[in-house]
């Protein structure tokens, strides 16, 4: 067994499920430029809009919820441990949880929907289905939720409170969230084209879930660092000078130690944020190619950080990163990689996410032997 680095956090396992399939299947499809987003009619919203969505199953506030069995299956693929018991904490993150069930219940659906309608009860249902013990923490801060969970997992390992940590993050689209983003006028029929200089912005939304096991046992992939910044400039806009993106980038740099990195950005398809992100990262990390996969997968909201990390790790294993599907030039900056590219010369990947309130998170993954 290889010696452990003091305080090092390794990924013992990392997997995702998207409408394109597993991490490997999703990676391959993204390299091929496959667009998972489809125009989907959404009921229950005035005007019956047709919205760009990437779904694992039809929109339906079913019982049991359509996210429950996929979560159970994904966890079953992870190393078997006494998850939720002492030294094996579980961190579950989402920005949606069972919100689909709450909306349906509010609109007159059956009483059984109530049991899944809050973050805590949704997680309790998952814990029961997966046989977790009591140490389950529920983490939720919009679209940085999964990366907050990854950070917290690293802290639990680093302080010796855990031997291993299971992180599960899931987000499934619903009329609740589709209606909200449509009301914000950024979820529309113009399919998202991250980092593309165009007249209107558009995001798509996607179902997805990711799962990882953090460990102190050495493996091929190490979480070399993470950084955060909360702008608090505006609930749904970034400071126009890009200072928020710059602040989180500067906090990441000490972890990079001069290594060559590529960047998986947040890149949802909104124009202002996409421009700020692309241009700031081009300046902060010159020579680091930038990609976004939300032009295909849609925005998987609170879970995007972990889902896209699983795909990024698969990319490193395969030696090639997908480009930025759905996005033609011109781009906001020269760092955007529209096509897939080789990863031989890179030591790691920085994974950025942003959220309401100007929240920013970044996680640095280094190849420790891949």
């Amino acid at each position: 067994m290889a010696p452990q680095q003091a305080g090092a956090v390794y990924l013992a396992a990392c997997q995702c499920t998207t409408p394109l399939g597993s991490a490997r299947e999703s990676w391959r499809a993204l390299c091929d430029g496959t667009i998972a987003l489809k125009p989907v009619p959404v009921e229950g919203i005035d005007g019956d809009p047709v919205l760009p969505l990437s779904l694992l199953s039809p929109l339906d506030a079913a019982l049991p919820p359509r996210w429950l069995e996929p979560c159970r299956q994904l966890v079953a693929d992870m190393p078997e441990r006494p998850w939720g018991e002492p030294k094996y904490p579980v961190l579950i993150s989402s920005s949606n949880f069972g919100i689909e069930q709450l909306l349906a219940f509010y609109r007159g659906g059956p009483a059984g929907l109530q049991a899944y309608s809050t973050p805590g009860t949704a997680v309790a249902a998952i814990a029961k289905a997966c046989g977790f013990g009591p140490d389950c923490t529920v983490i939720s801060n919009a679209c940085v939720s999964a990366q907050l969970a990854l950070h917290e997992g690293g802290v639990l390992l680093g302080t010796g409170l855990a031997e291993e940590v299971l992180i599960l993050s899931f987000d499934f689209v619903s009329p609740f969230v589709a209606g909200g983003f449509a009301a914000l006028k950024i979820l529309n029929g113009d399919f998202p084209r991250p980092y593309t200089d165009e007249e209107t912005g558009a995001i798509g939304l996607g179902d997805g879930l990711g799962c990882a096991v953090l460990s102190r046992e050495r493996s091929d992939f190490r979480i070399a660092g993470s950084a955060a910044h909360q702008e608090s400039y505006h609930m749904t806009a970034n400071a126009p000078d890009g200072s928020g993106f710059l602040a989180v980038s500067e906090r990441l740099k000490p972890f990079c130690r001069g290594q060559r990195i590529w960047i998986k950005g947040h890149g949802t398809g909104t124009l202002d944020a996409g421009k700020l992100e692309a241009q700031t990262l081009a300046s902060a990390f010159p020579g680091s190619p930038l990609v976004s996969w939300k032009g295909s997968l849609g925005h998987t909201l609170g879970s995007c950080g972990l889902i896209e990390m699983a795909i990024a790790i698969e990319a490193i294993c395969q030696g090639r990163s997908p480009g930025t599907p759905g996005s033609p030039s011109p781009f906001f900056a020269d760092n955007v990689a529209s096509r897939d590219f080789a990863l031989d010369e890179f030591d790691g990947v920085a994974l950025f996410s942003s959220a309401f309130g100007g929240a920013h998170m970044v996680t640095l993954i280094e190849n420790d032997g891949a």
Partner: protein
Amino acid sequence: MMERRITAASVYGPVSAISPEERKAMRSRLPRNASRRLTDISLAIAEVLKNVEIASGDDLVFASSWGAATSLETYLASFPNPSPASFQSSVHAGALEAVLVARQQPLRRLQSLANLPETLIPASLRAGLFSCAAIVHLIFAEEYNPWLGERGLCGDSTYACHLRLEKDTEGEALGKMSYSRMETQAAPSPSPVLPEDFCAKVSRRESLRFRYPVFGEFSLVWT
């Protein structure tokens, strides 16, 4: 063993509802444009933070089982014409973020927990005590909404509680919060420490020690 000094503590509530007069007074202490959309949970949070300085390098742990209940119910009620303002306020941590935006208050990391009440206290205290930041702010908050409350989908009252925890062991403090693992099979506390009870003890400056299965042993001792 992990220990931090408590250098600030403030509690608002619990109340079943904030009176219109009090709501008006609370709003008057905030920038006008930002304050007019704040619901009661955000006003309660703003109240406990009104004398608190937060540095941009501080961490903050927000602990709320149900978050912005009023914004959530307002958003649900707005269908089939979803309200963008209510949507963005209903997303978890939005109740706190609205206050941070009103104060134009950047910070390092906002951790946001949404455990059910039975485990919210040990999970959030653990997150706060073991934060990497020298200073971490813990904020507990809930909001009562009639429709959700009658169905057990939010808390029974509106309240907020703030604690500032500092890693540096020197200097004056209001008290001390500490954590240790339960190395032996010691009996846990007879019942979970629920958030509203915890905040009431903070308000009364009442010391507290409890063991929680799996999470460990916590104590809060006032100077």
